[in-house]
């Protein structure tokens, strides 16, 4: 069961990664990164249970807190610099 | 009801979080926990963060009811959005709408804004004073939000923080 959940989350990460590559704007990439962050947190938790090592949860907690800060940082840097969205 | 406006109560709250995280209740670690929480309260006080708005982190009975109601709304909205994702025949009709928030305090407005975002189908795009710009995925979610039930409930829960 944990394995099925793991596989589903991995597929979801891969799908999110496609959006991160495609863009087209920077915001799409940040959004994809943010979503992959959430998925990673959950995957770490599931893997912790699968391997019987629930102390993995500390890592998940760090992620929740840290990935929030880095998302905010990208947006603050971008908005303080620019007017128009980046399309590449 | 404890009020986190007071530094001591913030300390109490943080110490409770420490106990939940730690899992080791030896004298040494309890002392370190005491020192850590005191340090954090000191920094928070220096940063002028200890005020009424800290309250929202507490889970109180009146507020809990609101969260449960919101959780129900979130589940319903999720199922709707997921059907639209998976079934190409169900159209989406995205739009930007503006709604007025009737909450008195900044905290109330933030709660409202984040509640809107939490419910899939609506995302708060910007907050200017009491006017919110919201992106809605479909006409129905937009109408729902304009109906103002969420706004009323947040206004109600605002008094209980």
């Amino acid at each position, binding site marked *: 069961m944990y394995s099925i959940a793991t596989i589903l989350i991995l597929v979801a990460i891969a799908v999110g990664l496609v959006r991160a590559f495609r863009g087209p704007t920077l915001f799409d990439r940040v959004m994809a990164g943010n979503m992959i962050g959430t998925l990673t947190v959950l995957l770490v938790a599931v893997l912790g249970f699968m391997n019987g090592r629930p102390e993995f949860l500390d890592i998940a907690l760090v992620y929740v807190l840290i990935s929030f800060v880095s998302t905010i940082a990208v947006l603050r840097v971008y908005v303080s610099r620019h007017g128009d969205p980046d399309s590449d | 009801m404890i009020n986190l406006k007071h530094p001591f109560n913030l300390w109490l709250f943080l110490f409770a979080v420490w106990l939940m995280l730690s899992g080791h209740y030896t004298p040494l670690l309890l002392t370190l926990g005491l020192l850590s929480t005191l340090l954090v309260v000191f920094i928070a006080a220096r940063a002028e963060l200890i005020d009424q708005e800290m309250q929202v982190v507490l889970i109180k009975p009146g507020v809990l009811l609101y969260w449960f109601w919101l959780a129900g709304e979130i589940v319903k909205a999720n199922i709707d959005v997921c059907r639209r994702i998976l079934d190409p025949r169900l159209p989406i009709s995205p739009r930007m709408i503006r709604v007025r928030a009737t909450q008195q305090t900044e905290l109330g407005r933030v709660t409202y804004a984040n509640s809107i*975002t*939490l419910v899939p189908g609506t995302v708060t*795009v910007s907050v200017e004073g009491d006017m919110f710009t919201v992106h809605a995925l479909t006409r129905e979610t937009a109408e729902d939000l304009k109906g103002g039930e969420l706004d009323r409930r947040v206004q109600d829960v605002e008094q209980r923080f």
Partner: protein
Amino acid sequence: MLDMLLDILSWILLLGGALFLLTGAIGVLRFPDFYSRLHAVSVCDTLGAGMVLLGLMLQGGLTLVTVKLMLIFYFMVFSGPTAVHALAEAAQVSGLDPVEDDPEDG
């Protein structure tokens, strides 16, 4: 008996949550513009994450592990929508226009 029921319930939550996560990811890929994709991210952040964590909590039982899962959920409830809102606001400030259906009655 109760144990088994809880076990089954937790599997349902775990798998259901994972399916919601996948659906959200597909939505992020499939929806036509940035703003509508945000709604798909919300699906992941709310129901997907919530169900997976709840499923794990049932597996953890009344232990400190469950408390930590609750803390993760608690942080997510605060940080998830805030990040999505910050993204939307940044996009709007930088002038990214949404694709709109009949905006005149919006």
